[in-house]
């Protein structure tokens, strides 16, 4: 079954871990071409939101709709339209860059001969493709992980702190990549603490605090001041 959608919608989503409430009645919509910035302090619920959007967790109440369908109805085919880059890089350090990409390409039903080469070029790792990932710097791993997450050209691209460990130049390249993805019709959701990088990159801002959605508005200049007013010191 082929699945595609042009929007993703959280409807009254709450999530509890035991007695702790990680998310409380969050409603949010992101559409094709959006770069939605999920901003908030540590423990605000950003990563939980990303995990739920990635179908790795289910809401305690409420639902997530991909297009007009809930996740449960779409089944495994939905996951071919989702790409996730989290703080942990989802790479096997013992395997080479090429082996990592080839494994994930095959897992997504792609032909590694046509997908791995361009991805290595894009990560700037073509000349180190056969070296074990364990020998790579954090920045190199991050670039490889980005390509791994995008190998299957997902519609919904979820980034949880994608700028961790990257220098200014690499961060700029990732930001350009996010813009290109959104321009190509992807729905990009970006959870980050880095207000400077988010400012000018995101097209919409969702501010989250204590599991609650404080604000959901189009991005405008002066993100830091807006954040400080709604959340507190950034």
């Amino acid at each position, binding site marked *: 079954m082929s699945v595609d959608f042009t929007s993703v919608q959280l409807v009254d989503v709450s999530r509890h871990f035991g007695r702790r409430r990680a998310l409380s009645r969050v409603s949010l919509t992101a559409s094709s071409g959006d770069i939605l910035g999920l901003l908030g302090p540590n423990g605000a619920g950003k990563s939980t939101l990303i*995990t739920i959007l*990635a*179908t*790795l*967790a*289910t809401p305690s109440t409420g639902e997530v709709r991909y297009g007009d369908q809930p996740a449960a109805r779409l089944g*495994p*085919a*939905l*996951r*071919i339209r*989702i790409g*996730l880059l*989290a703080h*942990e*890089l*989802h*790479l*096997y*350090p*013992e*395997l080479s860059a090429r*082996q990592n990409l080839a*494994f*994930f390409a*095959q*897992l*997504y*039903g792609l032909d590694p001969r046509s997908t791995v080469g361009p991805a290595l070029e894009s990560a700037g790792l073509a000349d180190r493709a056969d070296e*074990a990932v364990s020998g790579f710097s954090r920045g190199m791993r991050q670039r490889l992980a980005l390509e*791994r997450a995008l190998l299957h050209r997902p519609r919904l691209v979820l980034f949880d702190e994608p700028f961790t460990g990257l220098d200014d130049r690499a961060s700029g390249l990732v930001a350009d990549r996010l813009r290109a993805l959104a321009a190509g019709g992807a729905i990009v959701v970006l959870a980050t603490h880095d207000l400077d990088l988010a400012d000018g990159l995101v097209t919409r801002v969702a501010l989250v605090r204590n599991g609650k959605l404080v604000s959901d508005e189009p991005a405008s200049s002066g993100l830091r001041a807006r954040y400080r007013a709604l959340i507190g010191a950034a």
Partner: protein
Amino acid sequence: MFFRTAWLVLRKDVAIEVKSLEVLTTTLFFAIACVLIFAFAFVKNGQAPEDAAAGILWIAIAFSGTLALGRTFERERYAETLRALLLAPAPRPALYVGKLLGMLALLASAELLLVPLIAFLFQAALFSRPLLLVGILAGGTIGFCAVGTLFAAMLVRARSRDVLLPILLYPITIPVIIGGVRGTAALLASPVDEPSAIMWIGILAAFDVVFVTLSLWTFEPLMTE
């Protein structure tokens, strides 16, 4: 897609193990050490106690298997690769099957070493009915690994996973261990008690069907947070 995914996961685990040899060497070293300690304790003047070999074989399999389960999933915890696997557009139970096959291959290689070692040190006639022995080993190992793989995957992100794994695993796999011990003991009887050995293989096969079915059924809900 299901079997292809299971095959890819198995092949990936083998590729990592070929490069690192970490889990294989640890498991084999532990299994051999376990048998040698029992040999030093029980073999006196070149004479091994009767019926000890069956118990020692299954203790070595259970303990080294627990070690291997922990190490195999530790690999998926590092860099949270298990989450990346769960994101793949394949039925999630296929990931379980791939990991289960990897564990079976690992324990099979441990058994290839353990069986001749125990036969030699304890003068046990383990090879008198090789097909029955293979049936008992396969039945017991599949049952043990079926439950162990599910629990090890469940506990990947638990802080006290090393403590919890044996606490959860051993009580549930006791029927399998008992079946393995009794079936092996039937092979070591003089004369060989073939009907009992065949009966225990049947019981182990029944446990395997139940454990694998339950694991396939519960894997996805247990792995989804």
